[in-house]
């Protein structure tokens, strides 16, 4: 109190008011505006793309579209049902390959490797593989599985497509498993080892369950990424205008329709109806990927609890 008094007595009330035209306030305001502008520009494509696809494709959704085969060129009645099934099948095959390999690799990195050169090499390789363009994965599978007809003499097939997508999924799954396991406190491992658990039992019964949610989130995100890929599927799974015979093994060793390749094929056809089917397929694909992303967020929220 006395200090304020002496201050006042000195005759100078401190001027603390905001002066909008001071230089620092002008530059601060300008920079805030600029940052906000770029943020808007950054999300603009997202909103426009999603909005355009939803408007163009959403209006064409009907029961027939979801249950019927695409028509031959020129006819105007049919749907995209075989491609929806195909995308699910190819993604499932990819997950069947990538999840065991990726989770196993992640377990090795986090639990067994002692930061030696081999582990370093795998981590580095995983990061590189995550950045490899998806068409390279397609070319690789085309060269190793399709042209060699290694799968019982079949060339293009759902399995080859799934393998190409698995190559894209594996880095994501390895990384999230590795990081998920690293988040498990060492106290838990020591506790398990302290009551006489072997390393294997510790991992299977204690650490993996504790890291289950981040791993599951990573797997779902990996599937979401792979499901939308076109390039690796064009020359591995190819395309089919028919139902795949999924009740017999021949079905998954034959070419199969997928949503992304259907979009690629139909969007450039000179037939109005097929173009519309491509839009509808885009809509369905976006909704599927959106649903997977929401599902992974939901998983992550469970983990936080």
């Amino acid at each position, binding site marked *: 109190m006395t200090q304020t008094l002496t201050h006042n007595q000195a005759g100078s009330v401190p001027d603390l008011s905001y002066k909008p035209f001071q230089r620092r306030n002008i530059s601060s305001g300008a920079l805030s505006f600029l940052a906000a502008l770029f943020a808007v520009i950054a999300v603009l494509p997202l909103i426009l793309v999603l909005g355009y696809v939803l408007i163009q494709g959403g209006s064409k959704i009907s029961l027939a579209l979801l249950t019927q085969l695409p028509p031959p060129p020129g006819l105007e009645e049919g749907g995209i049902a075989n491609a929806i099934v195909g995308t699910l099948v190819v993604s499932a095959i990819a997950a069947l390959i990538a999840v065991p390999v990726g989770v196993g690799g992640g377990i090795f990195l986090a639990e067994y490797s002692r930061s030696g050169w081999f582990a370093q090499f795998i981590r580095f390789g995983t990061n590189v593989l995550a950045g490899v363009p998806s068409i390279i994965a397609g070319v690789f599978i085309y060269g190793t599985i399709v042209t060699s007809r290694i799968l019982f003499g079949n060339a293009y097939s759902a399995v080859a497509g799934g393998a190409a997508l698995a190559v894209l999924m594996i880095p994501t799954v390895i990384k999230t498993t590795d990081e998920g396991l690293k988040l498990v406190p060492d106290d838990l491992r020591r*506790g398990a080892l302290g*009551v*006489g658990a072997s390393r294997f039992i510790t991992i299977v019964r204690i650490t993996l369950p504790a890291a289950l949610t981040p791993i599951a989130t990573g797997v779902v995100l990996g599937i979401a990424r792979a499901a939308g890929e076109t390039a690796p599927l064009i020359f591995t799974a190819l395309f089919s205008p028919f139902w795949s015979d999924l009740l017999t093994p021949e079905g998954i060793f034959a070419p199969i329709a997928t949503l992304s390749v259907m979009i690629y094929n139909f969007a450039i056809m000179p037939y109005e109806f097929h173009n519309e089917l491509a839009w509808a397929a885009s809509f369905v694909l976006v909704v599927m990927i959106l649903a997977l992303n929401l599902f992974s967020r939901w998983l992550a929220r469970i983990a936080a609890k």
Partner: protein
Amino acid sequence: MTILQQPQATESHNEDVALSLQNVTISYGNFEAVKNVYCEIPRGKVTAFIGPSGCGKSTVLRSLNRMNDLIESCSLRGSILFGGVDLYGPRIDPVEVRRRIGMVFQQPNPFPKSIYDNIAFGARINGYAGDMDELVERSLRQAAVWDECKDKLNESGCSLSGGQQQRLCIARTIAIQPEVILMDEPCSALDPISTLKIEETMHELKKSFTIVIVTHNMQQAVRVSDMTAFYNAEAVEGGTGKVGYLVEFNDTDKIFNAPQQQATQDYVSGRFG
């Protein structure tokens, strides 16, 4: 400097010795953390390791059930005999060692499972074939946490308070029926009331188990232990940092009332450390 004083054990049967450390030196990489430890830990008693920070008492404790194996650079010279068998012998399975020599850690670390499963986990993986419900109840009773848990055996072990969690961890260790229980500062994260309960638990436990406890709390050593080992650290010429060693090992009474070494006298009277 190192003094081995345990006339009872050496004169009577070797049966009375649970663990025998013979010239144990433990290093992290090239750095010797603790050297030339001779010590015979008696069976059925509570032995306390005391000493200032960095004197290697926790390191020695962890070496007793090969927990140091988890630390990459850690190596041990000398031998630790458990019932006449060298724990660091070439054909020893560390998992087998840890089943007989259990450990309770500084931080309570219950598994993210139900209270029941926390206890049953160790017993199941050790092939326990008896009545699991009975084992769970007996272990929880022995660890003096049964009354607080009996109505919520299916709730997560993490839902308990810190002191209860630590007693759950003790119960979990008891459930595998080890011969020795190692405790690494089990009360340092707990409040005085919980500490008291754990100390009471230890008095009960020493009837059936050999207990080795590391503690920073000298009063705790006086209250719970029969034997006390005092470790100290000192700089050695040519070395980097301090090297720990065992100064004196004797009855707790003697260590605190009539120590034979000046360093022990200084430490227990609070002059340093």
